[in-house]
């Protein structure tokens, strides 16, 4: 057992301060993005989520120019972009996609400019890599209180809107007829999503942020059919992916080329994708077993429905 642990955790893992910080920040962010991301997936807003992350790179690079932490840049521009998408997007899905694409293009244009200026002013390309692909080990300890506070606020707003969000995700018509302010709820959700995406961008980079927002929730939806369960499972899957990613990245310091650790973001994204595939296989096996089971025990369940015994599906 201890040998397995020794093989998994390279020497010095638990003594390293950057590792501690990365574990805490990574867990908080993964939890929030997982929970928030469930609604991104069921509302069909994965593209908007992806766009908000990439557009954030313009804000992150601008913040670097001004000497601020990239998180504030990511978030500022993601919220503005979310507002623009909502404003331009009308209510038809196709118009919404077009609006998202336009905002994405404009944001990336700005990112091209700011990243160029960043690189020339600091005479290094490291900042470009950090903004676009993240560096969990480099997240400043001073950002921890802000990250925790933003996460808490996001989860709180989500809890307050929870039932209205579920109902309007089921059917906007139905929600509107019940007096749910569908548009306002949609905007509130976009803002929460912008914050979650920005947190993800701060940890695994602007371009990879979607992986954390969409991956764990999509995986959770394959494993559970309860709304509350999906939120919990998505959060946990995100945390496991990030923690395992941190462990592997730390280990990779001893892999070739020796002395250069592989990026954490690579491991996190690879694990998220792997979990998604495994969950699909698990869901298929469970389904097949259940089908065989129900064929063996024919229609006992239908006895609960005395009036229509014949129409059991």
């Amino acid at each position, binding site marked *: 057992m201890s040998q397995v642990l020794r093989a998994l955790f390279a020497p010095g893992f638990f003594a390293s301060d950057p590792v501690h910080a990365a574990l805490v920040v990574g867990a908080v962010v993964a939890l929030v993005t997982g929970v928030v991301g469930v609604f991104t997936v*069921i509302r069909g807003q994965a593209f908007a989520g992806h766009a908000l992350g990439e557009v954030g790179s313009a804000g992150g690079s601008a913040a670097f120019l001004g000497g601020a932490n990239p998180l504030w840049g990511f978030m500022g521009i993601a919220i503005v972009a979310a507002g623009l998408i909502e404003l331009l997007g009308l209510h038809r899905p196709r118009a919404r996609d077009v609006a998202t694409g336009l905002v994405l293009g404009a944001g990336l244009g700005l990112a091209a400019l700011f990243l160029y200026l960043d690189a020339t002013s600091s005479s290094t390309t490291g900042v470009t890599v950090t903004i676009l692909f993240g560096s969990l080990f480099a997240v400043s300890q001073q950002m921890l209180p802000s990250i925790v506070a933003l996460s808490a606020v996001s989860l709180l707003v989500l809890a307050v809107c929870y*039932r209205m969000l579920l109902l309007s995700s089921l*059917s906007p018509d139905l929600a509107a007829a019940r007096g749910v302010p569908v548009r306002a709820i949609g905007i509130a959700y976009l803002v929460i999503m912008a914050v979650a995406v920005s947190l993800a961008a701060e940890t695994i980079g602007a371009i990879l942020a979607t992986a954390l927002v969409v991956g764990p929730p999509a995986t959770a939806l394959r494993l559970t059919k309860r709304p509350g369960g999906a939120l919990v499972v998505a959060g946990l899957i995100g945390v496991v992916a990030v923690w395992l990613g941190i462990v592997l990245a730390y280990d990779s310091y001893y892999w070739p080329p020796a002395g250069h650790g592989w990026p954490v973001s690579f491991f996190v994204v690879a694990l998220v994708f792997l979990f998604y595939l495994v969950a699909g296989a698990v869901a298929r096996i469970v389904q097949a077993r259940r089908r065989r089971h129900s064929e063996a025990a024919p229609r006992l369940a239908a006895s609960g429905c005395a009036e229509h015994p014949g129409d059991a599906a």
Partner: protein
Amino acid sequence: MSGPTLDESADDAILDVDGVSVWLSGREVLHDVRFRIMPGEFTGLIGSNGAGKTTLFRVILGLQAASTGSVLVGGRPLTRRNPIIGYVPQKIFLDPDMPLRARDVVALGLDGHRLGVPLGWGRRRKAVDAMLDAVDARRLADARVGSLSGGEQQRVLIAHALISRPRLLLLDEPLANLDIGAEGEVVALLARIAREQRIAVFISAHDVNPLLPVMDRLVYMAAGNTASGTTAEVIRPEVLSALYGQHVDVLRVHGRILVVAGAEGPSGVTFEETDGAAVGPDIVALR
């Protein structure tokens, strides 16, 4: 069109639509619509796609303002979120991975418009189970809604609408996309609900026939115009021809009704014109 017996009890009407017109982007979508629905009555809203059925529902639900006229629900003017009205929207397209079980959808009918997270699990669960029993869908309780058939989804959505104890149930094309068996089951369920719980059922459909056995009255819609009354009063060539603005014939075949338009005049209608032999050459020409 309303008879004297109706006027006497007008104050008790659960829905009173009086002279409603709606203009949308320069076009009159509804023109002077007027009819009444009494408690426990089963009323059909019949018309083809684009006749204005969904617009009329949106007006009754308070989602679309009427340009003229008034609507009283339970004797009171319209408000948004009227607890007297239960609503089943047109077919909802759900992905199979939507993390909602049938019981979750029904529970959202109880408190889906509220802020915060749900509390009081036991009481909610009991109410949801009872409602699923009422629509014969208890065995679907723990299935994902996205994996249910069209008819099963309709039952769950009807339970969702009924759990808040409405007195008027609006259903927008609930029979569209259902096979004939499921169609009959849903209609029978709705008729039973109207009769046993004295809930007025107002159901839109493009075909009058599935509703014929259970319908008390109907509102027929064509090009934004409406006629209302019993089936015998409304489904007549004179009434429907005036409604459509062109000659229309009504054919009755084995207790079913066919409404056929397009002939020149009342005397010009012959069955030869519409049978296979006459239209055959056109079909061949299309190939």
